């Protein structure tokens, strides 16, 4: 039974991206624009303790922002994937049982 369930799960991972996955590319474009902007700012500002971002010296503030975006993207995307895959597998299993 367990092997059958595992096999079913393998084949229900869609080979083509889900619709929501295409939005990730919009997020990547936003990241690229953000990176370009902040790197230019860092080049211009250089070492300057007066300019601060998120309460820290500018470069360290930007680094903190990167860490926050990185953590948020992982925390938001993982439940979405789990929900979408589990929902699909549950529906198929339910229909097979009927």
């Amino acid at each position, binding site marked *: 039974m367990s092997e059958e369930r595992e096999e079913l799960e393998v084949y229900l991972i869609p080979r083509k991206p889900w619709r929501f996955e295409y939005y990730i590319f919009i997020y990547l474009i936003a990241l690229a624009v953000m990176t370009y902007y902040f790197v230019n700012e860092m080049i211009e500002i250089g070492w300057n303790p007066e300019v601060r971002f998120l309460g820290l010296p500018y470069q360290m503030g930007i680094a903190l922002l990167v*860490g926050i975006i990185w953590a948020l993207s992982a925390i938001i995307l993982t439940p979405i994937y789990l929900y979408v895959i589990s929902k699909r597998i549950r529906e198929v299993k339910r229909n097979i049982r009927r």
Partner: protein
Amino acid sequence: MVSTWSILVVAAVAIFFLYTLPAAILARTRMRRYIEKAYHYEFYIASGTLMWVTTAFAYMAAYMEAWEFVGMPAVFVSEGFEWWFMEMLFYLTWVPLWLLVSLRIWRPSKIHRYVTPTDIIVHRAGGYEAPLRIILAIIIFYATILYIGMIYIPTAGVLTAVTGGEISYHTFLIIVTIMILATIFIGGFRAVAYTDVIAGATFLIAFGVMIYFVVVHYGGFGQLIDTAYNTELAKKVFTIYNPPQYFLTMLLIYGSSWLFIPHLITKIYAAKDYKSVVLGGLFSKIGFLIGAFLSPIMVASAFLAQYGNLPELPPATVVEEYPARLFFDWLGPSILMYVIVLGLIAISRTTVDAMILLGASLIEWDILQRALKLKISPRARGWITRGIILLTATLAILVALDPEHPMVIIGFEFTFPAYAVIAFPTMIALFIDRVNKYGLFWGYLTGFASLILFTYVIWPEAPHNPFGVWEGTLPSAIASIITLIVSYLTPPPPKEHLEEFWGIKKELEITQRA
């Protein structure tokens, strides 16, 4: 006369090995259930049976090595903030794209029981199997050997520094390698993955000790950063010298290429179910956040705060010694310092063992078994596997013995662009059905040829292009464009081949039953 502390540091390697030994023995016991059915699938992939807790630590181990622990803080101080910042940018792309790509690698790997990263590539290509296997195996093997050597250097260098040079770099190189090989020989990939859990817990504790100590010492995160930022050395450290396009290509090209990094691919194959890929991915990212973000930023800042106003930095054989020196200056030979030493041993081991296995599998599986089709008896196969593993580890030691050799230095610049040249055409083929064997073959070939030409002949100075972009950008762009152009100019791959690759027939059966 060797001090008691130095003897204790050497003993730490043995202690670490002993407390991970039960996990390796458990792996050997379980391995017996599977090894007769499919020797290589069990020895190199643990028969695709790893649960999410194990995969979380295994994925973490794929990216976190001595480089994160001591290399990143050292580079932050010696080369500048920007080099560490670029490494962080790479995770920004990698994190959201991880599940998109890893699940599409995992699905065919479970259906066809792949052993090496080359398996999925040649299967998707559907032709030119022998030449593709040989070319890819050699390139990945070469890059992997250099990479292992890169990890050995800070490991042995730092352990030597912790003993004040009393125990030599070469001695630690040999001791650490023996420990790693013992685990591999006990239980193959399964032993590596099980011990990764204990090793991962060890280095997360060590990171915790470092972070806690730094925060307490400076009275808070903000105070630490401000103290570090207002030193003389900080003026140089926080100046940006690379152009914005270098950062941008590190974000988009370098970051995406790590989705198909060979020693991670085998760990995706090893996941038991989709939850192991998804949850393992999430928890490994939390580990990265502690190990690759928080720990380096705090240790580097602490180093700047401590030594940033000195006329010059303390002398060091390798810059990776700096973080160890900082903590040794603060903690001296103490229990907390010993926890940090154990963490260093743990984090170094976790990446190297999986990479040694990967290197050996490329030679044994791809070249000997699949490309050259050698018939090896079940009795001889165990000895051949061990021999190739030993050879792989020895070649990596040769790299670490002479880190200043021009061939090694230029090889480092070659490693990650080479991985990118493999990654992009492969990922394109996973998502675009029109990509065929001609496109993939010529894509890889032109990618590698352009990489060699740009790196060694046309632009021998870094970043090996006149546009100020990351070193792997042009070769991987050429590989991707050629893959697409040749694929669209030649007949599409047979529909039956794609259906067989993705297991469409079975999928239709399941959905029709539903």
